[in-house]
């Protein structure tokens, strides 16, 4: 029996691709013939990690396709060609209204993603959602098949690699580092991070705000953020741009607090990463954020910059509070451990294959 995974693009380092690669091993260990198929295969991936979609042939009616859905693609429609059982892993799609003021192409792509989702609603037999939020969205969009939640598989062992020494030296100078990791994109609301930092700087003048992430596709939004920081007289807002994995590790290792003001997230892997590095998390309660934090971290319900700066100040300066937050995050992180997610996935896939759903 074959259980294969299908996604439009697989590339090195992105969360969905990492999930697919990790699941491939789990499926193989369960004894099924498996493989990853994609339209676009990143050049940085090891040879043979995935095959082109057109090579996916010979599937029988009891074979299973696990389709990763996260963007707009005609694969949503081409999936109809395969006469086998279909399971979808929904990683969420960013609503186009976030992108349209800055990038029409990106907005069109995500709008197409939602069209594809509507097409799939009666065409998949089972869904896995990264979060309760994603599950609710599928229900709201008319999916009637069984839906279960399975957090994304994060390869935490990779995070024990050595951080970049130059970045460690640059950011590890004893100053307060407020960190956010994620691409520079309008749904991440980096302007709200800058607004809170503006007030926080008044109490901690040497503090630094590090915005780690690529601005690919949103150069105009990034330029606007830089102009905003400049207009506010803030010199310590660091836009790292696209950085290497060891540099990201250095950012986490030197961070005093992880601040997330994102308006839309389907899971938000950086929250779990911050937990892994014992960095206290402060995050605005939107979309999937509360679900991912699971009662840990410091969940805020107000984006007022003065208020947020007050919360940062408490978390940075109150040692006892910091430790309590870190302890809570360690407990929560255990829920995302490889073994736990693997066990959950094996159970869910087993039920689907055994037609118990």
């Amino acid at each position: 029996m074959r259980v294969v995974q299908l996604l439009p693009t697989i590339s090195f380092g992105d969360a969905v691709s990492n999930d697919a690669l990790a699941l491939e091993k789990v499926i193989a260990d369960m004894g099924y013939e498996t493989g990853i198929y994609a339209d676009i295969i990143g050049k940085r991936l090891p040879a043979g990690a995935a095959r082109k979609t057109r090579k996916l042939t010979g599937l029988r009616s009891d074979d299973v396709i696990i389709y990763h859905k996260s963007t707009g693609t005609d694969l949503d429609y081409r999936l109809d060609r395969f006469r086998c059982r279909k399971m979808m892993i929904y990683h969420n799609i960013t609503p186009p209204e976030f992108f349209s003021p800055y990038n029409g192409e990106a907005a069109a792509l995500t709008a197409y993603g939602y069209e594809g989702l509507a097409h799939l609603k009666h065409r998949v037999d089972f869904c896995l959602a990264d979060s309760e939020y994603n599950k609710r969205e599928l229900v709201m969009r008319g999916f009637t098949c069984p839906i279960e939640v399975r957090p994304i598989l994060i390869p935490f062992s990779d995070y024990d690699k050595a951080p970049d020494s130059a970045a460690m030296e640059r950011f590890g100078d004893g100053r307060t580092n407020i960190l956010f990791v994620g691409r520079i994109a309008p749904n991440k609301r980096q302007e709200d991070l800058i607004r809170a930092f503006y007030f926080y700087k008044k109490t901690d003048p040497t503090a630094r705000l590090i915005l780690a992430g690529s601005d690919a596709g949103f150069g105009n939004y990034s330029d606007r953020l830089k102009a905003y920081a400049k207009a506010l007289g803030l010199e310590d807002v660091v836009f790292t741009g696209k950085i290497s994995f060891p540099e990201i590790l250095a950012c986490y290792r030197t961070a005093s607090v992880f601040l997330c003001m994102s308006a839309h997230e389907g899971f938000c892997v950086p929250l779990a990463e911050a937990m892994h590095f014992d960095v206290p998390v402060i995050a605005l309660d939107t979309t999937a954020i509360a679900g991912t934090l699971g009662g840990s971290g410091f969940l805020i319900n107000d984006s007022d910059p003065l208020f947020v700066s007050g919360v940062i100040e408490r978390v940075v300066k109150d040692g006892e509070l910091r430790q309590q937050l870190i302890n809570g995050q360690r407990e929560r992180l255990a829920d995302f451990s490889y073994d736990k997610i693997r066990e959950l996935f094996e159970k869910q896939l087993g039920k689907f294959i055994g037609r118990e759903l």
Partner: protein
Amino acid sequence: MNVNTEEIMAQIRQDIREKGLSSDMLSFDDIPYSKPEQADSAGDISGEGYKARMLWLKAHYYIQPYKQLAGNAVSVLTKKIVRKMTKFYVEPVVFEQNDFNANMVSVAESLTEANRKLERRIEALERENAELREKLDTKRRKRK
């Protein structure tokens, strides 16, 4: 976990009130930025709107031979029978149309790329032309 974040947040709000602090500041909305083009003028193939339409074409060129059937059980069954009966005619036409669409998209992409190359070439030639004219003018002025 025994962190009472609600209580801490209430304390912070109280503190802000007592100190009479205000979060008035420059708004992000007041910062200008370069907006993507909403609609391209005819013939403009370098704008965001054109790119979005090209992307739409690439994503939508594949047509499904059949739509999902709706209605009560009898109606769906009838439609299914009609669909079976017309399959021999509909499917080949749709697949032919899909091949045509795929080729059209491919041609449109090639033309776009060819046009971009031409634009770059024209720009280079115009620059060269302007430089040559300037040199010529300089020589003429010197002769006078």
